[in-house]
């Protein structure tokens, strides 16, 4: 007898786990990009890193019910994107005009 609830839980767990591994790999590549390039490339790498870290933390909160991970994830996702826009404008004004 196949237990559907167990299948659902297992599918969700392994899906989230494999997606977290994939985001960790993308985050490592983003760290490499942030460390080797110039200023704007570094900013792009850090932006991708905040995205991957935020999504991973959100999935950790869903899987393991760790509440502070959600707050950190929201802060990373929102402030990472907004900070990227602000610093890009700053770089443009400082370096371009």
């Amino acid at each position, binding site marked *: 007898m196949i237990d559907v609830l167990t299948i659902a839980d297992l599918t969700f767990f392994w899906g989230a786990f494999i997606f977290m591994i994939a985001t960790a790999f993308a985050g490592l590549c983003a760290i490499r990009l942030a460390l080797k390039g110039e200023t704007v490339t570094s900013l792009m790498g850090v932006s991708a890193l905040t995205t991957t870290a935020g999504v991973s933390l959100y999935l950790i909160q869903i899987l393991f019910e760790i509440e502070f991970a959600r707050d950190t994830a929201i802060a990373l996702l929102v402030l990472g994107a907004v900070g990227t826009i602000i610093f890009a404008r700053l770089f*443009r004004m400082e370096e371009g005009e």
Partner: protein
Amino acid sequence: MIEEIFVLIYALIIITFVGLNIRKGSFIIEPAKLLLVVIILSVIATFMLYLKGIDIYLAIKSIAKILAGGIMFAGALPMILAGIGLFRFGDEFGPNIFYVRNHITGVIDTVASFVMIFAGLLIFRLDLVAVGFFFFVLIPFCGNALANAYYYSYQRRLRE
């Protein structure tokens, strides 16, 4: 044991399908038709679970959770390929490689926000949907601001 085998086969089918789509460069099955087929299959599976005696709420929740897991399996492959792309396109390709990297980080952001939105909808977590949608709205502005900053800084370096 049967449950683990089901999860493995399900993951392999989804990852293979996404990989074939990426390799072809376009959709093998049209997204509208695929969505229709998935919805019909989900309704049939929910109805069959209900007929077997499982509570209707639990049946809907189980099927939605399996679909959410499938979305995460589908999102894992583009994320890994985007990471490989960030490794692959180094500085030896010239100054314009920045725009390629900008596109790749855009892929990472888009996959992350899509997974947050659709998985959040399927597991009934509206906070995840809200954050994902907010992030999805901000992605084009991020990419545009980065490309703009790089363009003007590159122009300045050319002048110098």
